[in-house]
């Protein structure tokens, strides 16, 4: 479907790095360090759920972020971000586990936190995947978003311990939440 055929206000998105960062495929270690530093500055709610995270980001951006589960078709990306006139939407696959859904949503959120530039996705996703070559993460924007998305997912509170023992779990078991 070309941009001209798309209903008014519906724009499918793919991403590229901000100006000056093109081709910035740094090593994974450095990418993780940089993403960790970014997360510390991001002022996100501590130990939040995915919904809470989207609510906070929606408030920060002045546009609500709506999460929509969908049936994935063959060749389609597992997660997708769309900008609409009054809201942003993140689509995630229906037929997978809650933890995986959260991870996919975190990947899309990571694109926003990294200030990646959205572009109209006019190409057939199958063609895009073939063009990308070795890995789905050969694209620098996708790699960066996946690194930050993974770190973000690790910080979520998807499986909280009992409230009275939360602080003890962190300091004795060295983990924030039981899903990590």
């Amino acid at each position, binding site marked *: 479907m070309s941009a001209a055929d798309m209903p008014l206000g519906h724009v499918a998105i793919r991403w590229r790095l901000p100006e000056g960062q093109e081709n910035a495929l740094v090593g*994974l270690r450095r990418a*993780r360090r940089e993403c960790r530093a970014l997360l510390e500055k991001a002022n996100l*709610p*501590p*130990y*939040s*759920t995915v919904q*809470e995270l989207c609510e906070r980001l929606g408030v920060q951006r002045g546009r609500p972020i709506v999460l929509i589960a969908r049936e*994935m078709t*063959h060749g389609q990306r*597992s997660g997708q971000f769309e900008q609409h006139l009054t809201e942003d939407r993140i689509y995630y*696959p229906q*037929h*997978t*586990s*809650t*933890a*995986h859904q*959260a*991870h996919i949503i975190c990947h899309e959120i990571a694109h926003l936190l990294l200030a990646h530039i959205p572009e109209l996705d006019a190409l057939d996703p199958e063609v895009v*995947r073939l063009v*990308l070559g*070795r*890995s*789905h*993460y*050969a694209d620098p924007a996708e*790699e960066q978003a*996946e*690194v930050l998305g*993974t770190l973000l*997912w*690790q910080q979520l*509170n*998807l*499986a*909280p311990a*009992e*409230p*009275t*023992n*939360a*602080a*003890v*779990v*962190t*300091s*004795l*078991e*060295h*983990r*924030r*939440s*039981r*899903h*990590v």
Partner: protein
Amino acid sequence: MSDIIFSYLCLFLSILLCVLAGFKLRAWRRQRGPALLVMGMAALVSALSFLCAAPAIAHLINRVSGIGPFSVLLAYVGRMLFSACAITLVLLWSPPSRRPASREVWAVPYATVRSEVRRKVMWVYGLIIPAMAVLFAVFCPGMDTSVALDTTYAHRPSVLVFLLIYQAGFGWALWQLGRISWKHAADLPAHGLLRRTLRRLTIGCVLIGGYCLSKTVAITAAAADHHALDWLGSIVGPLSGCVGCLVLASGWAGAAVVTWRQRRADYRALHPLWMTAMQVDGRLALDNPLRPWAERLATRDLEWRITRRTREIRDGQLALRPWVPADVVEVARRRAAEHDSLEPQEREAAIAAAALAGGVRALRTRQRPAQHSEHTPGTDVAPGDERRHLVLVSQHLQGPFVAQVLAETA
């Protein structure tokens, strides 16, 4: 206790506590939890305290400084700093008086804790330590450093006050830490790792408290010129303290070590399932796969590695969904229902493994099923059970159950 044996014991504990401090501080660098920082600092000051208490090092310190039993002051101040850290830990671990929504409990109320730390820790120990230093300055000139301070000189008022303030400050911190650990343990299910760990902390605090009690009894008796109980202060107390320190240190490190070992076991157990996902689509991996020997030796960064592995496994499972024949899932469910001995989690994992294997077979032979399974088995697991579920799936992948299902649907 013989000076040589006590020296070795103190040096051993000092090294152990340094390792514990490094362990906790490394975890703090990754997670930034304030309790981890406090535990690291507590272990470090305790390590220095034991170092100063080792007779061989104590003689060296006293000789070099030229100030009477200076090593005693250093050791005792180290324990006061440990006590300050212990009370801070108690404040961080104390549940809030009201019950907020569960997600908020993970966020430490720094403003509240900071003001309580100022009130209960900095003021209290901020007064105790200078008071001890002043008293030491009063009584130390001309003191014979070859004899035990606490029983030989307990009759002097300044020494007695010095020793009792020290024991009170130390004992109070141990009491609070033991109490909060016991309280938390009581809220946890029986036989759990965390409950056992917290009970161990309580036992450690009680044993170290035995040191305080023995010393206090011996000091009080010596102050009244009764030296029949000196052995309490010179043998029982130090032994109890050393054993208690070992127990407490094992509690502080034990749960994290068990967690690490479980992570390592899970990481290796997920390998076959991950390799299957890579067969579905090798481009799903964010990083290059490790060589087999590196895979076997992987001990660091396990949280990240496991997270990536589970993500990529689920991505592979999602990509494989159109290839999973509905009849394979149906047969797997029927066969699993016949196995009464299987727990529900095992059953679901076995069905998921059979579905995955069926999908991979269809993909390899390029025979897309006329009807693929609408509902992917094993996707209803809670986030906290996700890793456990995938480990079970991995274990079943090469097992007889999956082989039976594949044979029946060939």
